[in-house]
């Protein structure tokens, strides 16, 4: 009888584990606190990011969304005034406290910034940069990766004849797609997007938004935005932040139709 129980529970565990993979969060944040000198920028953040969904971090400017995003791939290292504590698990690795190689953990996340920050090199080299950092030197493989990722963001046809010209010659919308392609080329699991359409015209913005909808089949997307409509269009999961706190989170329908807090109600009214 006892053996039966053990076998049953083991089977159950195995099943749970298998079915769990999909629902198991790809990124978990626990007790994250960030201080900048005396300001408490992020206050005890606990958050789980679901796999293959678009999670939108929504909130007014200056509420700590971008800082939260930068904590996720430890870019906070660049800002010496920031003091970060807590845990952020990317799959099994706690990026804030791990002894593992940070650059290779960062490659699990592609970054798309507010403005397209191009590397000072050609279109081709912008995409190949991260791939080369992985140690891939074979020209055929590099070219394959460049072509594949430029196709993925719909830029290949527009640039295939001028791959070796400076990336700065592209329009700003194209530049932003190039940045996306460059991020995808290192095969990340997660795309961190920090108001990626804020510098773009409506048409370019639309292209990026459509790409996100396509990309979520294979990637988890964390999108920072203060544009309510964008959140409504794209979000599978919404996290509403206000001055360093997570005020509310949940599915968009629930959050936008039945806001529980006054702060979110006010934000929704003003946003509309």
């Amino acid at each position, binding site marked *: 009888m006892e053996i039966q129980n053990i076998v049953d529970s083991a089977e159950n565990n195995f099943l749970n584990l298998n079915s769990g993979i999909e629902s198991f969060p790809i990124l978990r944040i626990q007790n994250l606190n960030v201080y900048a000198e005396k300001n408490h920028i992020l206050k005890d953040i606990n958050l789980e990011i679901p796999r293959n969904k678009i999670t939108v971090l929504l909130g007014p400017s200056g509420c700590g969304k971008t800082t939260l995003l*930068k904590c996720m*791939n430890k*870019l906070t*290292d*660049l800002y*010496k*005034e920031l003091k970060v504590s807590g845990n952020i698990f990317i799959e099994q690795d706690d990026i804030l406290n791990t002894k593992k190689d940070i*650059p*290779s953990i*960062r*490659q699990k*996340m*592609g*970054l798309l*910034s*507010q*403005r397209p*920050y*191009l*590397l*000072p*090199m050609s279109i081709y080299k912008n995409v190949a*940069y*991260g791939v080369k*950092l*992985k140690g891939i030197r074979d020209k055929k493989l590099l070219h394959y990766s460049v072509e594949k990722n430029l196709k993925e963001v719909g830029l290949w046809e527009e640039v295939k004849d001028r791959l070796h010209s*400076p990336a700065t010659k592209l329009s700003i919308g194209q530049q932003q797609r190039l*940045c996306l392609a*460059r*991020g995808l080329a*290192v095969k990340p699991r997660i795309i*961190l997007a920090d108001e990626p359409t804020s510098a773009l015209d409506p048409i370019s913005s639309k292209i990026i938004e459509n790409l996100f909808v396509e990309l979520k089949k294979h990637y988890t997307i964390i999108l920072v935005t203060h544009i309510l409509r964008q959140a409504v269009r794209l979000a599978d999961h919404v996290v509403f932040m206000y001055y360093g706190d997570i005020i509310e989170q949940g599915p968009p329908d629930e959050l936008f139709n039945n806001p529980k807090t006054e702060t979110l109600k006010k934000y929704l009214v003003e946003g509309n």
Partner: protein
Amino acid sequence: MIFRRIAVDKTNNVWMVASLATILALPLIIGIGLYIKSIPLLEYQSAGSLVTSSEWLPSQGKFGFWPFIYGSLYVTMISFLLSAPVCVFAAIYLTQYASKRIVNIFMPIVDILAGLPSVIYGVFGILVVVPFISKYLAPIFDVSTSGYCILAGGIVLSIMSIPYMLNIMIEVFNTVPIGIKEASLSLGATSWESIKHVVVKRSIPGVISAFGLGIAKAFGETIAVMMVVGNVLKISHNPFKGGYPLPALIANNYGEMLSIPKYDSALMFAALLLLVVILLINIVFRYLIYKTQIK
């Protein structure tokens, strides 16, 4: 009323253009002045042979400027080789790694160094660099020297040009947007890889312009070099031997020995040479900046 406003507007314009024109005309006026003054010498000997000849015997009417040009180029080269790497690494450290506190302490020091009169550097050279070379450095290479030599000139010049180059390089590295570094890091680069491939690469035109300024500064510097370089009129490839840079020639001799025919004109020609070389350095570096910006 409207008429008055338009009139003021127009006259302001004139003033600004006039100020600008004065600044633009200055090098031209100086150049023409020096040229007119050197005509007596140039009538006597062609510029080409003056520049390439090594014989300097003013009393016999022999004016060969090559030893001076050689001396200037040599000290400048040593100065550049010593100061350029130091500046690049110091600027990278200050802009990319150092805490705000270190920057706040260090920046005023750089400004003080830039503002020190060159005679102080000369004294420092005589008190520190010259004895150091003669007592410690030269014996390592099994050379005996008084210490007053090309190398001493180069070292003093390198110390003098560091604050100038460093200031520009710090500015240049600081203008690289942090977003570009973030992009590089997020793609899996280490901090050093990001600095090397992105920050430095993007700053190349600015770094070249800093180099240009440093070289021009070193080439034209007079007093400090003159105090330590030995002022020996001999072409030697050995940096432990003395030399005689072009600016020192003018500073040492102007006002003296002007009774010798054409001597005055020869010194003016030396000044003209300095002007032309500085101009050439600037043109070359402009071109390099332009070339690196295109890519």
